[in-house]
């Protein structure tokens, strides 16, 4: 059974189509990065997966229909929607008590262990914590839940780089094992490149690209072309070309690495570079609309 399976998933708000017929299959044990410009439909798709919004089409998460079975589904799914959703009036100790009270798979000792590594006081109210501490608290709560699927929608939004690094480190070291599945969206693409097993680009409600990171690394090659070889390189049909310090950097899809090595310095592109290339090739895409990539 796939962790997430969608066929023709569609969601419209009035005349605006946020998710336009997505087919999707996420297997167990993957870490999928969902990358897209603002308004691409990422959050809407995640909300459908989490049972927060009704949708058209077929969608099964862990074998359940999220819209009609949200409360049962949430025994096996955790999500961090945004750092600001923890109730501001709540004390840290109350948050622990409450989640322990309502969640059958919450391991309180584990959460206390995570909190012990931070400077968060148990008697503090959420409103008294800094943004980074709130994110730490939420992550401690979520990581102490023995869930099969964890959904992170911009979990590090507004956090400084130290917190962001720490966030993904503890996620990988203390939480992820091969039986869990993680879906994450973020604008800081470059920070999660090494974390992901799969990447998906989404634009205007459609999936533009979906591949595993192994596939990504073997398919895409970026070449800083030697000045004399530009014409030869262009003949191999790059999907994107940009200039850095007067040198041409060309991005190729499925062209032999050996062949390209003769034309210049070869490397695997960053997800951000590929994102810019793929989005730039989408018709009608203004340059300024690609945010956060690069």
């Amino acid at each position, binding site marked *: 059974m796939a962790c997430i399976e969608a066929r023709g998933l569609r969601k419209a708000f009035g005349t605006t189509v946020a998710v336009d017929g997505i087919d999707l299959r996420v297997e167990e044990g993957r870490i999928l990065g969902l990358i897209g410009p603002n308004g691409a439909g990422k959050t809407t798709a995640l909300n459908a997966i*989490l049972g927060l*919004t009704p949708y058209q089409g077929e969608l099964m998460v862990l074998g359940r229909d999220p819209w009609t079975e949200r409360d049962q589904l*949430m025994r096996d799914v955790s999500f961090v*929607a945004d750092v600001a*959703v923890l109730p501001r009036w709540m004390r840290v*100790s109350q948050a622990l*008590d409450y989640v322990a*009270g309502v969640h*059958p798979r919450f391991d309180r000792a584990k959460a206390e262990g995570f909190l012990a590594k931070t400077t968060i006081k148990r*008697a503090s109210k959420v409103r008294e914590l800094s943004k980074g501490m709130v994110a730490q608290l939420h992550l401690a709560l979520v990581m102490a839940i023995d869930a099969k699927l964890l959904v992170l929608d911009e979990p590090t939004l507004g956090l400084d780089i130290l917190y962001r690094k720490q966030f993904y480190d503890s996620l990988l070291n203390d939480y992820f094992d091969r039986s869990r599945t993680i879906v994450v969206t973020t604008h800081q693409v470059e920070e999660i490149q090494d974390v992901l097993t799969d990447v998906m680009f989404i634009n205007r409600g459609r999936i533009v690209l979906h591949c595993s990171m192994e596939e990504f690394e073997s398919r895409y090659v970026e070449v800083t072309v030697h000045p004399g070889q530009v014409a030869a390189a262009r003949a191999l049909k790059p999907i994107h070309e940009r200039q850095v310090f007067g040198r041409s950097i060309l991005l190729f899809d499925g062209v032999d690495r050996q062949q390209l090595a003769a034309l210049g310095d070869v490397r695997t592109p960053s997800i951000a570079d590929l994102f810019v290339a793929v989005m730039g090739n989408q018709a009608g895409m203004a340059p300024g609309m690609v945010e956060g990539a690069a």
Partner: protein
Amino acid sequence: MNTQSDAVPEASRDSQGIAPAAMSPTRPMYWSVRRELWENRSLYIAPLAVAALGLFGFLISLIFPPKDSGLAPLDPAYRPAALAMPYSHAAMLLILTAFIVGIFYSLDALHGERRDRSILFWKSLPVSDLTTVLSKASIPLLVLPLLVFAITVLLQQIMRLLSTAALLMSGGSAVTMWRQLPLFQMELVLLYALAVMTLWYAPLYGWLLLVSGWARRTTFLWAVLPLVAIGLVERITFHSSYFGSMLKDRLIGFAADAFVLHAPGSPPLDPHFILLNQLTPGRFLSSPGLWMGLAVAAACLVAAVRLRRYREPI
């Protein structure tokens, strides 16, 4: 009231030991109600503050007794009623406080969680919309009445102790007062009155909860203006005021069904001094107004549960 929960409660400790499937279905309900009390501390602070104020006033009246009251020789038939007056005043004040607190609580219950976006956190946990709405409805329908009863009983006992002390210090005897003040009977009547009013006002709370889950802002206006508008349209179109009198009946109509207001051959009912034989629970339970109201309350709650599934932060 336990607000300080730094100590690990027993209930949360055993969650680690038991198998996930063994979680009792009432636990999310229990913790959801506690959650409401953590968030809305005014639920118990307001009645406690009013009780403290009432006690202070009573103390003043003991130290400086008003000339024309208290233990002055009265018609013996009216003495118990005069004695009971401050006690029933205290009870009425607390009932009124709980009513106001309950109204403001209900108006915010399903609105606040959307306003502060915390609804996304609550929805990330395995708690159904039904449990959430029922836990919020239980505050005005169960928690507040019981709280008011407990605080009132406590307050009245303290008041009786204080006046006993005052009587003894002034050299009098407290025996007459203890014999003539039917405090236990008054507390039974209070429990009955609280149950009656809670059941009678249930549709009101249900409506406010529904509006709080539905309106994006200004919940108070959305709760009140439609009722005013219906009354106005009826008046202009049909020159009648059935809707208005229906609302008025919803506010005070319980009294006629739940108590003997005018028994033949006896004085009219004194709201400060209701005796057990003046209660008519049978008539109240068989009044169509009660059951229609409960049906409206149930419909509002069902709608609020359905609605919460679609709700997101505003």
